[in-house]
């Protein structure tokens, strides 16, 4: 089996979905001939034609607004937002329309739309290109929000998201687009809305998703050299959250650290920490700690490495939970 990058895994997943279901459409800015600015849709227009891989006008509200109409007509639009920071012109359509139409229609009108957003920083971008808007969407009832962190998940999760009858915000860690892994396409994937223990340990639980998963795993490997055993969980789904494996883990380790690039204040980590406290209070040896982006706008890229949660900050948090 050959190694596939995370971005290619999504391309292959999109291709498989389009082959399976003629109602699946890919739409967005530059997704056709160029194959998207990250080349995730590379080759799809050549194979499926301009009717199914649509270069849209440069208008995000338009991309999502027309996706709503196409979904009502029985299509399954997969919308690409070029970069995280450009989803906001579409924010109104996503939050006020996409998220609410099923509810508003008392279940009569499903919205099987996938919004693909390359998110996160760490690649030297200019402003508006490195943001982590997941909490804004996870806070909106009616939307589901998932984040892949590796090629295997990316391949299966994109197909599962497209098959889902609810709107799914599909977050792609752009700094990890070039990570490689072998993909067994015949394997049975984990359910889309499930989190997963990816490394077992006994001393503390580190929770992460998307781009910070790699860093979390590296920190666990480093901790091991110091004799500290860290369990790592890939949350994978942010709305709904799948907390069962988390509770199980925290009951075992008694300590939890949540890691994400997004601003710490009112981020996913705050919700996760609250739920752990509510459900595992008597197992906790220390308060649940968060390691996140600071509560400032994303800085100029020369200092982004310091802004982003890194190995040291995660290990520091693990040490702090262990010092209680």
């Amino acid at each position: 089996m050959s190694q596939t990058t995370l971005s290619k895994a999504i391309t292959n997943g999109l291709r498989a979905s389009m082959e399976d279901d003629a109602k699946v459409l890919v739409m967005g800015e530059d997704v056709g001939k160029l194959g998207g600015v990250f080349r995730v849709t590379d080759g799809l227009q050549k194979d499926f034609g301009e009717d199914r891989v649509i270069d849209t006008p440069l208008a995000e509200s338009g991309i999502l607004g027309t996706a709503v109409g196409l979904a009502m007509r029985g299509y399954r639009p997969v919308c690409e937002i070029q970069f995280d920071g450009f989803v906001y012109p579409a924010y109104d359509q996503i939050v006020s329309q996409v998220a609410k139409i099923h509810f508003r229609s008392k279940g009569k009108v499903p919205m099987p739309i996938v919004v693909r957003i390359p998110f996160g920083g760490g690649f030297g971008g200019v402003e508006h290109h490195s943001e982590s808007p997941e909490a804004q969407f996870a806070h909106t009832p009616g939307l589901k929000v998932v984040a892949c962190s590796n090629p295997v998940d990316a391949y299966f999760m994109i197909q599962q998201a497209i098959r889902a009858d609810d709107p799914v915000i599909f977050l792609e860690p752009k700094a990890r687009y070039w990570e490689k892994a072998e993909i067994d396409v015949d394997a049975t994937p984990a359910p889309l809305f499930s989190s997963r223990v990816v490394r077992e340990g006994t001393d503390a639980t580190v929770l992460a998703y998307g781009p910070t998963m790699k860093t979390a795993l590296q920190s666990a490997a480093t901790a091991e050299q110091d004799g500290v055993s860290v369990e790592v969980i890939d949350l994978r789904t942010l709305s709904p959250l799948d907390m069962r494996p988390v509770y199980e883990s925290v009951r075992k380790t008694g300590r939890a650290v949540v890691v994400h690039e997004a601003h710490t204040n009112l981020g996913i980590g705050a919700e996760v920490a609250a739920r752990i406290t509510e459900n595992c209070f008597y197992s906790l040896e220390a308060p649940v700690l968060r390691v996140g982006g600071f509560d400032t706008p994303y800085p100029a890229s020369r200092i982004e490495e310091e802004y982003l949660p890194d190995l040291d900050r995660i290990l520091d948090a693990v040490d702090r939970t262990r010092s209680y």
Partner: protein
Amino acid sequence: MSNDLPAPEVGAEKLGAVFGPASADDQHDLVQLLTPEGERVEHNEFAFDGDDETIKGFYRDLVLTRRIDVEATSLQRQGELGIWAQLLGQEAAQIGSGRALEPQDMAFPTYREHGVAWCRGVDPLALLGLFRGVDHGNWNPADKNFALYTIVIGAQALHATGYGMGQLRDGVVGTGDPGRDEATIAYFGDGATSQGDVNEAFIWASVAQAPVVFFCQNNQWAISEPIERQTRIPLYQRALGFGFPGVRVDGNDVLACHAVTKAALQRAREGSGPTFVEAYTYRMGAHTTTDDPTRYRLSTDLEHWKLKDPIERVRAYLTRHAGADESFFADVEGEADEVAKRLRTGCRALPEPQILDIFDQVYAEQTDELAAERDAYAAYLSTFSDDHNTAEVVS
């Protein structure tokens, strides 16, 4: 291959006869005052009001702007900039319009208006910070009346409109005193005309009769998407639907761009409301240094547009009709070398940002919460004892 939207099929002809054509012939609407061969031509509405000295000044601006662009592109190739948005081919649109502005006018750029920045007197070095990743734009918009670069496509069209509404309220429009009257110009690309913000700006400006010139550089590409993906009618014709005039000018003709923009600004200053200027040009470089135009663009198009180069035609005019000699061109070249040298050394010397500063730049009035986050991070940094100047960090 057709990038055209599908034509209406059912009864199109018949309905066309009733409703009239959906788009007008746009072949004859281009305002041009200097041909690609360097010959001056007359236009029945617009005239260039400068002399040969002014044109020499334009030539200098064009050459220096191109050099700034070329130099920044190579700085990107050398790893000194993360990315650069090139303007190759768009120099005349920017210099022509930029030189039509009065100091008291306000300009709202995208991320590509390096030539306009030059005209406003913004230090070219200041433009590099955003692309080097040391800041998000490090000039004060109020200093030279040049707003910060805007990355989110189209957003600045509304900012410009609001600014223009402020000018109206402040009574600096239609005073009859050319030294006092103000106008605002908003720059954006052809792709931006699809954004809601731009269309809303048109409505706002029109209804408010705001003194705004919407200056669209139609370089015919929005990254990989040709203009046909954004519109079916010539862009300038859209203006009428919003209730103000639109004009298409040869965007590679610095004299025409100057004349048309100046007239539009004049209209705005005297209180007659907005104008839409479509500078018809071509993006000869890539969209940015990360783009690969060979995937979507024909090289024959590029060759075609090279013949319309905005600088060559001015050079031809100056040589043939304004007595510019080799020493004039050599002087400009020498000056360009100087600017390039300054950019090269200056770029590497741009101060690195400091992480602890970002906490102080979020609010005008610092919050206790954020101050605590800053202190906690400073304390954390100080635990790396072997690291640089920890003492300074905790203080």
